[in-house]
């Protein structure tokens, strides 16, 4: 009798399929032309850098793009984060959490959770930049 140890499988991946997909086929890669807000953050822990740019129209995020210097999960986290915040209002996006990224990616290894935190911080930095550039928008009710 032979026992299948699974050792000869050809389908191992370091991350789950969703993370691998976002790493290999990143959504929203690039920089928004004439961005309304740009956020760039760096991880003190590992040295990764994430840059997210936003186009905001009528208080709503019309476009979000990213560029990331970092590992597979950092690239996937920024890809997913930009995907998630597109279409949200600035006010909604202000409460964006890294937990949403983790959930949408179907989980990240514990040592890679900080990548999703970096994505949250990049988005918040971009929103802060937007509010600084558009002080008139800050006080307005958004919808």
């Amino acid at each position, binding site marked *: 009798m032979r026992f299948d140890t699974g050792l000869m499988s*050809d389908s191992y991946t*370091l991350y789950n399929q969703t993370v691998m997909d976002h*790493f*290999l086929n*990143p959504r929203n*890669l690039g*920089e928004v032309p004439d961005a309304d807000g740009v956020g*760039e*953050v*760096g*991880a*003190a*822990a*590992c*040295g*990764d*850098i*994430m*840059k997210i740019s936003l186009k905001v129209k009528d208080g709503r995020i019309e476009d979000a793009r990213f*560029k*990331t*210097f*970092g*590992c*597979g999960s*950092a*690239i996937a986290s920024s890809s997913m984060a930009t995907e998630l915040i597109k279409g949200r209002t600035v006010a909604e996006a202000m409460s964006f959490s*890294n*937990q949403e990224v*983790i959930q949408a990616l179907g989980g990240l290894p514990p*040592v890679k*959770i*900080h990548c999703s*935190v*970096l994505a949250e*911080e990049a988005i918040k*930095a971009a929103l802060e930049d937007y509010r600084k550039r558009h002080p008139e928008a800050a006080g307005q009710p958004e919808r």
Partner: protein
Amino acid sequence: MRRVYLDHLAATPVLPEVLAAMQPCFLEAFGNPSSLHQHGLRARDALARARAQIAALINAESPEEIFFTSGGTEAANLAIKGVAYANQRRGHHLVVSAIEHPSVLGSVEFLEKQAFTATRVGVDSQGWVDPEAVRAALTDQTILIAVHHVNHDLGAIEPVAAVGRIAAQRGIPLFVDATASGGWLPIDVQAMGASLLSLSPHRFYGPKGVGVLYRHRRARLVSILHGGVQEGGRRAGTENVPAIVGAGVAAEIARRELPERIAHTAKLQARLWEGVQHRISYVKLNGPPPGAQRISTTLNLSTEFIEGEGQLLLCDLHGIAVASGSSCVSKSLKISHVLAAIGLDHALAQGNLILSLGKDNTSEEIDYFVTTFAQVVEKLRGMSPMWADFQRGVIDSVIQPSGRGTSFAAHASALAGKPAAARPS
């Protein structure tokens, strides 16, 4: 899918001859070498043969000087702790190079929490230890010097014979970790002046689960693993006979094939580095250039503006197995302590890739790697904000500075002012 294996420092397949020699030890020759009947005596004989094969590989005076452990890590632990404990009445100071393997540095740290002290001797930008710096670190309390033969990350061949002469003058035992060089470089423990030396057979086509510690008969060593009287009382526990037999055969074949293995890998190493330089911009070789001062099996590259784990993942998806010393690859999120010790710029350490060649790699595989790697670099640079900033002249290259823009490291540390440290979630 096409498979190209370039991670021979992590593991090698066992040779067919090795597997064939091991197989009877699982079936009819399963005896315990400590037993006094035929089964035991047969296993004991197999151990003796393996000891002689290993002794021949490193020119030990006697097979009695060869001890088998569970691996290179245990061999290093036994060498460091076993010598320290055996000599603690003479002194309590150890001198080690700063770029030793974690099994050596971890053992030293463990001893430092007890009554021992240690001096870590730094290395230059190529990863070389200065023997005079070792001499300067010695005190009348020093009971052990540890300098590895070849650095596992950088491939630098260390001046161990010169350190050995200093050790001999001062009457201090020298431990040489030869796990990165065993089976790939000639090793002569007597010419090296090594009192202790470790090997890792699974890196030269032997099995995992076995390590070797050579100990000169006059070097005092106590056991750190207690139980039965195996391995001359220096390593308790029933011997892993199949693996030891496999290690012996792997050593014998390595000794025979050494010249051709070196010639073959040296040719591929030169081809690989030339190809990479030709096809990819802003890439640096860490450690000495291919030649007499570098082992022929490894290349350690830093590719600027991109990170190493992404390089590794994309190579893997193209069937190419490589390693990286980037912080993203490490479970501690720290860059390799070796890259830190040679003073490598953090951004370059992040873009690190380690390739290790084997006897079965071909020129064609090297060309496939170079072509694929060029595509991988292009894809990742297309995602990198640092590459974009470099194009705009905001960030400068460390490898070939243009004089425009700030350094990557300065830029990154300014950004990290907004800390994104791992938070519990």
